């Protein structure tokens, strides 16, 4: 009898302990809570792009979301380093771009959350990022979201990290702003940036995007989903202005492209891809599911008329990750009046598109170069 009683006690104790263990919550892992918190694990040391446009106050006491301080970022949008964008990486160890060992194993956490607001509302963060530091000691994950349009009230935002390998993260958090989305600059507040475990969260399935889905509508539109970052061939022959105000087809701005046909790189042709994320030649799992689209339309005109574009294209980026299909039209001879063009996508697999739009031309058909304009590039 004694034996049975002691066995029961041991069993109950075991059950109690295991229940307690399972019930124990995974603790949040903080990037930033308060300036002087000993629990901040990353430092805002990685300044990028037009760093001269940024001012950081990480002990701002104006109106923190919690605790005594918040982060205040003032962005001038002046393009001090001529990049058109700027950002800050919170790193561990500080100033680590992958050459130093550091970082944390964040396995078990599956979400990054943060509070954010703008001074006036409508300020835009173009990108929030977790991981992605390359180099000898590279982060094991790279996830980004954006763009985000802020309100003047604190709101919580999150990055889904389910199924991501977080075993080595030295770039805990990064934000990026750009001058196109914030032409007059922006004042942005951030607070309570932390990694948490959310047991109810599931891996983010890519769902088909709603239409119309813009590649470009206006330079400062938050609805732009691709960036003209993929310059090809004689890239030195290209001048790009994405906020051109010379007779746009619609809205305030259009895209102006000046191709000089000088064969700067010796290729004798040049072109440009609008990519997501920027500079993605298929090495990053990005892009959109545009399965619902049956056409990509855009408006174009030449400065004089007669400018010949060999092809306008959707998709076709191939790499570790490849666009699911490609479609094109061309050659197209532009007129000096706006004209709408359409790339037929019926029957195409648009389920994974990183290269939203591209053009290419060459010096054989434009020996004197070409100046042309594009506007309202949209999946319909």
């Amino acid at each position, binding site marked *: 009898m004694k034996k049975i009683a002691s066995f029961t006690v041991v069993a109950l104790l075991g059950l109690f302990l295991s229940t307690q263990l399972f019930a124990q919550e995974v603790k949040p892992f903080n990037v930033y809570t308060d300036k002087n918190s000993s629990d901040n694990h990353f430092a805002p040391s990685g300044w990028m792009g037009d760093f001269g446009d940024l001012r950081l106050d990480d002990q701002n006491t104006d109106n923190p979301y919690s605790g005594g301080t918040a982060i205040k970022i003032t962005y001038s949008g002046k393009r001090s380093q001529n990049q058109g964008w700027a950002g800050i990486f919170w790193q561990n160890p500080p100033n680590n771009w992958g050459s130093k060992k550091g970082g944390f194993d964040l396995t078990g956490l599956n979400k990054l959350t943060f509070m954010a607001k703008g001074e006036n509302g409508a300020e835009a963060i173009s990108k929030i990022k977790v991981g992605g530091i390359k180099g000898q000691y590279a982060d094991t994950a790279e996830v980004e979201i954006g763009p985000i349009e802020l309100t003047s009230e604190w709101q919580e935002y999150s990055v889904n990290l389910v199924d991501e390998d977080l075993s080595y993260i030295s770039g805990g958090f990064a934000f990026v702003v750009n001058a196109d989305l914030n032409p007059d600059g922006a004042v942005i507040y951030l607070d309570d940036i932390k990694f948490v475990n959310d047991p109810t969260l599931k891996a983010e399935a890519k769902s088909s995007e709603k239409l119309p889905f813009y590649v470009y509508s206006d330079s400062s539109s938050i609805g732009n989903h691709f960036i003209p970052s993929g310059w090809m061939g004689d890239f030195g022959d290209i001048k790009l202005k994405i906020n051109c105000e010379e007779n746009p087809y619609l809205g305030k701005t259009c895209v102006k492209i000046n191709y000089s046909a000088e064969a700067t790189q010796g290729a004798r042709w040049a072109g440009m891809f609008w990519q997501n994320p920027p500079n993605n030649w*298929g090495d990053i799992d990005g892009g959109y599911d545009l399965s619902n689209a049956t056409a990509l339309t855009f408006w174009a005109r030449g400065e004089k008329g007669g400018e010949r574009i060999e092809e306008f294209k959707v998709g076709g980026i*191939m790499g570790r990750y490849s666009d699911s*299909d490609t479609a094109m039209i061309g050659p197209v001879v532009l007129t000096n009046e706006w004209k709408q063009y359409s790339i037929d996508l019926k029957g195409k697999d648009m389920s994974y598109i990183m290269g939203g739009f591209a053009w290419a031309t060459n010096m054989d058909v434009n020996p004197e170069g070409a100046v042309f304009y594009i506007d309202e590039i949209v999946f319909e």
Partner: protein
Amino acid sequence: MQIKLVLKEAKRVGFLTFCLLFSFSVLVFAKEARPSKVEIRKYNDSRYRLLVNRRDYAIKGVCYNPVPIGEGYDYDFFNDPRKPWLVDGALMKQAGINTIRLYQPSDDTEAVKELISDLYNKFGIRTILGNWLGFWNYPGPCYGDEEFCQCVKEEVLEMVRTYKDEPGILFWVLGNENNYTFDGRIRPWSTEEIDELESPMEQKHERAKLYYSFVNQLAKEIKEIDPNHPVCLGNGELIGLEVANEVCPDIDMVGVIVYRGKTFGNMFKGVKNYFDRPIVFIEFGADSYDAYLDKEDQGMQSFFLEAQWVEIYKNMFRSKEGEGNCLGGFIFEWTDEWWKHNEYNVQAWSEHDTTSNWSNGAYYFDIKAKNNKNMNEEWFGIVGIKQSETEGDLDQRIPKKSYYVLREFWKNPAKRIREIKNEKKNMRR
């Protein structure tokens, strides 16, 4: 008495056996001498099967152009007294390769016939024969010129008449990447009527229409001469096929030349949408030189080739997944060709050049090479070559990793595809 009966019976059985064996050998001999009956059958949902003498045939092919070290584009392997195909055929058979692609036969028809019949009779390897359709003619092709087209037509029909009764012939291929001429970027051609059109897009469309109409006419006339072998349209990617669809009712299949890295993407569905015929990859592959690290990487090549064959098999008629419209493919290529980087520098034909010729992001391991040039034209073989120690002997054949990986894959593709799926699942865990 009994012994006599037994002997008599034995004689009778022996005679019958002799008669049977004789008839059988006559039948076999007669079968060998006859051309194979090659058919394509279409099923629901545009699924296709290739049948050779009523049996399923999955094409496990290689492009064959075994240029030795020190030789160049003008080397005629058909007339090489060392008969390289005898060494290569044995090695191909061991790997499971069952078909070769010859881009265009040489003028020596007897030599070509010898190669085709040797490969078929000794190793069971069939041949597809192609014609460039004047793509490389001087001063260039012009599919709007009657005289030019007549000349090409005579050449093609003569090829068919000459080889149609060879039992080793599988099908005919018309053209290669001739569709890239439509926009005038390579081997440009036009007509006065086309030039009068204002829009270059319309010009391109008209060129496509002229070209594909001509190819269809060839296909039609081939079938009048040879009812036993299908006709394949050779095409770079799927470009222009929407036009071919309007004017090519006599084409039986489309042969595409594709370099898309580890996946063919939407190609199988795309063909169904634009040109509903079975698809065969008449040229695809990967090189075995890492242009970024500047060293040979056979693992990189075998990774891409196996991934490509997985997709080919997934889209064949017998597969439950995929589109069921793929007949197989021809890897580019059997052996490395050391002359290709600089075809005009004869001295360089004896060196295995490591300079990359072109860029293709789909082959992403070495895309960070200088100027992104990562494709090494002289390293596409699944078999390497090495100068023989005895002068005058054939170059040694040194199978690369891909050779062995594909040999294993072809032994049981379904099993290997299952294994790969499991490997991916385990990696995700």
